[in-house]
């Protein structure tokens, strides 16, 4: 096992990693920018090294500085957390050259999955379902109708050279095809000088469902169930839950097994997540993240598996020992990302936290690096903590979330706590009836109708 792990991250995830290390008897090194001198994990770590000025590219993304910090502290492994260098194959490689273990998958797997086109090709080989698309350009309407018939309507006509929605048309029935294609071709020609079109199945109201995977050092992967992360704003997840309210046991089992089998075929080692879009017509692979996810705690809450511990075990070459049959889900979990942002305008709100009182009690977990008197720096992302609630079932979970949000006191900065309180009043949220577009359209409606939200 490792003697000393350097935590190449900041904020709540740095603290999360520190705690996991302490449980395993491993010493920790916090590296930090000058803006994070007062950060909680810096204070708690066994050692800390300032690696640069506030801008991330000069500190948290500064590979030479992090390597030098490994050298002067003698760390034998680096946990990259999420974001920053966590999916940087080059970093993983360099660490390897210096004899330092990167706690994550192999550089090859990182690189492969980092290239979105290569990842889809691999996914196809691994029999993962992809959003059906025409093989290259479609010549004419007949071919397009043929494709649409095969994959079922609606389909999306897209400009091969396209982008930004131009040259893109949704076709819901066969009679619309010819018109849509000529319109799209004309638009594409005008915009990009190229009228070539291709077709893709159009997913109407997809949900974002992701499967948590763990590949052991022998390359046998298991899955830890799915998370539903459909509530997003500008592609940022806001609230995640597990299990997904949209899946039945059969679908859950199926996608889990499919993903785990694919990861095993891939020889994937470490923690990873396969992301899918899900509609009534099934699952469609989007991409694979080769790192710990922000939302890993919801999986921890229902499976009881300590994800960070598993990552460390696997990186050390030790078999985690968990078999697929050991994974049993208990209850329901929801995570709310607490951002230092205005809950209505989403404007960031850095500054001093003047009061901090997290909720406690049964089924309540707070992962946060904030404390009273802490100054939230303006240099990094606005997430300052996560409120994770576990309950015997989804209803208990949401009821508990309600009082926990009410008891959560953060003063001095704006937070997204009121946003979640508002969301919990929405029937669609209570019923689990939402897709990846739901939150943005709800926000748009709320902004049109400002007095609605004032009660929250």
């Amino acid at each position, binding site marked *: 096992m490792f003697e000393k792990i350097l935590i190449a991250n900041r904020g709540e995830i740095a603290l999360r990693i520190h705690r996991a290390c302490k449980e395993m008897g491993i010493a920790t090194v916090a590296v930090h920018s000058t803006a994070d001198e007062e950060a909680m994990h*810096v204070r708690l770590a066994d050692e800390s090294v300032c690696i640069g000025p506030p801008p991330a590219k000069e500190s948290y993304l500064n590979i030479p500085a992090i390597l030098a910090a490994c050298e002067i502290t003698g760390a034998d492994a680096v946990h990259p957390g999420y974001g920053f260098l966590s999916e940087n194959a080059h970093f993983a490689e360099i660490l390897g050259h210096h004899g330092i273990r990167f706690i994550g998958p192999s550089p090859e797997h990182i690189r492969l999955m980092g290239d979105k086109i290569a990842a889809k090709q691999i996914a196809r080989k691994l029999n993962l379902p992809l959003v059906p698309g025409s093989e290259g350009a479609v010549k004419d309407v007949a071919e397009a109708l043929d494709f649409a018939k095969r994959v079922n309507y609606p389909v999306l006509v897209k400009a091969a050279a396209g982008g930004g929605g131009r040259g893109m048309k949704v076709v819901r029935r066969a009679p619309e095809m010819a018109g849509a294609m000529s319109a799209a071709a004309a638009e594409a020609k005008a915009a990009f000088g190229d009228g070539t079109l291709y077709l893709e199945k159009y997913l109407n109201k997809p949900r974002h469902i992701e499967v948590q995977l763990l590949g052991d050092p022998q390359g046998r992967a298991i899955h830890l169930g799915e998370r539903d992360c459909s509530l997003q704003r500008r592609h940022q997840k806001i609230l995640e839950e597990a299990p997904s309210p949209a899946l039945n046991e059969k679908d859950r089992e199926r996608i889990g097994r499919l993903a785990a089998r694919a990861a095993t075929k891939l020889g994937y080692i470490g923690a990873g997540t396969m992301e899918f879009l899900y509609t009534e017509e099934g699952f469609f692979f989007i991409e694979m993240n080769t790192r710990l996810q922000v939302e890993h705690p919801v999986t921890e809450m229902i499976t009881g598996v300590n994800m960070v511990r598993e990552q460390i075990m696997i990186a050390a070459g030790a078999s985690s020992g968990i078999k697929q049959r050991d994974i049993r889900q208990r209850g329901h979990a929801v995570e709310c990302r607490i951002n230092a942002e205005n809950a209505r305008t989403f404007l960031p709100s850095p500054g001093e936290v003047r009061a901090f009182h997290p909720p406690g009690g049964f089924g309540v977990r707070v992962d946060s690096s904030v404390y009273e008197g802490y100054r939230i720096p303006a240099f990094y992302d606005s997430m300052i903590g996560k409120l994770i609630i576990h309950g015997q079932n989804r209803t208990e979970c949401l009821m508990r979330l309600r009082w926990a949000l009410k008891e959560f006191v953060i003063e001095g900065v704006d937070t997204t706590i009121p946003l979640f309180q508002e969301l919990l009043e929405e029937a669609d949220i209570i019923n689990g009836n939402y897709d990846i577009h739901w939150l943005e359209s709800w926000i748009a409606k709320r902004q049109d109708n400002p007095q609605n939200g004032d009660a929250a």
Partner: protein
Amino acid sequence: MTDKDKKKAKKERAPRAAAAAPAAIARSAEGYKNLVRDLAELLDETGLSEIEIEHQGLRARVSRAVSIAAVERKGVASASQTPAAAATSSAADQEIGDAVTAPMVGTVYLSPEPGAKPFVEAGMRVKKGQTLLIIEAMKTMNHIPAPREGVVEKILVSDGAPVEFGEPLLALS
């Protein structure tokens, strides 16, 4: 580095606080500000919640509602055992008038090779761009040049010591 700052703060406090003879202070326009700062530090040092001083026509009172950063104290306790911190604390203890700070993390070498004469010594006049010392990071020797002409007042790190970003290396007058 938390503990370093902490130590610095503590060391600084004593002399400054001692110098806090109130009468002298009121002379300058900025005088009372320094007095207040000194008293604020004294509060920290002594754990008092209020101090009132009256001396030759000057009276000052400061108080502090109770401390927040309890995490701090705990953190400090553990951090103070860190090797990196220990290695650098001697440098950090003193007030650096015009220090050349480390532009990167790494290991300091004061001479070009083991046993050789150091690049510079205290009292030596240096030219702008002249190598002051080396920081090794990733097996690379980085020459740290003098930012300007001046006299080396004191070297604040020892040969082979690890340094972090921003750490004072030597004082240049």
